């Protein structure tokens, strides 16, 4: 699933580098409906995800990430994938989807795509909790 290098002999695929150079949706949403905070500064990667939600649809999204190239690129692509999507669909986004969307990640960077999956789910969960709902409805 994860690949060790892209065809042009670089550590990261050009898709990763594109998102790293120009990340989408970075920043903060002050009046977010749901916020996910995952990662650990001890490990070097931390991701915050902010969601605006209307009718169970993600109408706006932003991330703040402290981390390596892969952490920033996976944050960017994940926000790109789920914006405009129903929560239920966004919930299903997996680390595999994230890595695939980037054309692959180096094997030892796999944990970064998990961060995006976890961050997004944490934000959705936060939103549902505030609403008195449970994630069980998505499972």
């Amino acid at each position, binding site marked *: 699933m994860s690949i060790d290098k892209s065809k042009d002999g670089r550590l990261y695929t050009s898709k990763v580098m594109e998102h790293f150079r120009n990340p989408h949706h970075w920043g903060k949403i002050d009046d977010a409906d749901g916020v996910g905070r995952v990662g650990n500064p001890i490990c070097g990667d931390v991701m915050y995800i902010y969601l605006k939600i209307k009718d169970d649809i993600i109408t706006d999204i932003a991330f703040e990430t402290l981390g*390596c*190239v892969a952490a920033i690129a996976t944050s960017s692509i994940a926000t790109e994938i789920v914006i405009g999507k129903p929560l239920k669909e966004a919930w299903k986004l997996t680390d595999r989807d994230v890595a695939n969307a980037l054309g692959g990640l180096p094997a030892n960077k796999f944990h970064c795509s998990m961060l995006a999956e976890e961050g997004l789910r944490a934000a959705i969960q936060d939103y549902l909790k505030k609403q008195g709902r449970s994630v069980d409805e998505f499972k």
Partner: protein
Amino acid sequence: MIYLDNNATTPTDPEVVKAMLPYFTEKFANPSSIYDIAFKLKGVLENSRKKVAKILKVNSNEIIFCSGGTEADNIAIMGSVLAQKDKGKHIITSSIEHKAVLEVCKFLKKYFDYTITYLPVNSAGVIDLNVLKDSITPETAIVSIMLANNETGVIQPIKEAAEIAHNAGVLFHSDLVQGIGKIPVDISELGIDYGAISGHKFHGPRGIGIMYLRRGAPFTSVIRGGGHENNKRAGTENIPGIIGILKALEISSERISKGASHMAELRDMLQESILEKIPQVLINGKDAPRIPNTLNISVKYVEGESMVFMLDEEGIQVSSGSACTSNSLAPSHVLLAMGLEHADAHGSLRFSLSGETTREDIEKVLEILPPIVSKLRKMSPFAPPEFK
């Protein structure tokens, strides 16, 4: 390309390559053979050994050629403790050694039941000689402390440390790899028993190193065979490599005083300007003597790999103590040993200059780095509002 990762490796000096070339194709015999071209080559070998010894201020029979810094560290430490089996199974080293030393110690612990003491360092990155003194026991077989740290450039008080070890009847090894070519290294003045040098760290070739072995220091050879290197390290001699490391030593020792002040000037300029231009930056090791080419900084609220890649996109090569590419996620053990927070260690950058580095190179870095830091801080969840 502005290559500022000379502590990782250096390009081989073209003069070094030129010196090596005849020994590949024309002057190629096995120095152990007895006919004339071989004997002449044996002469070249011994002559090179003498010249190397002279530069390092030791005797020529104390110079053992081997394959690199890692091997030199390995065979010196193993060769010493195996030759001192009766002495006891305790080794003292520091918490900031290169893995070439740390991993031999782990090996000796795992396979041969040695106990290892890792000396702490203070926030400047320097060992405490009193702690060294107190750590020595009757069981201690060897103390190994590096001359200069590869990440921070911090120089350790080797002469004093060796004296403490010797006063307690304990042998002393020092990883000299990062000192050579950057500061004058007079081995006899340091008073060590074993030392390790690596060719490619000072514009010599890869695949060649030197183990210094003080005459009379206990040693048993670890790589054995045809009795080469006075029975200390077997294997057909790598004459081109030996010619190359000699040439690199000659060049660097000729240029050392000019080169060192050149590098120090640029390094200090880089350091001061970074502090001016980028808020909330730590200079790691700034309160200790450092080799003149190395600057290690921690940029708050940013992770190192991201900076390395952004700099690389602009043609600037540096390294980071963030371990984001390795399988363990722990950042630099050196920076952590100095008491840095994990996050700051992850946010570290190492600039290591060479004699070829120019003022323009440094100015370019000073132009490129601040906006990169700003951009990444804007994205960082921890950066305070003023960076947003």
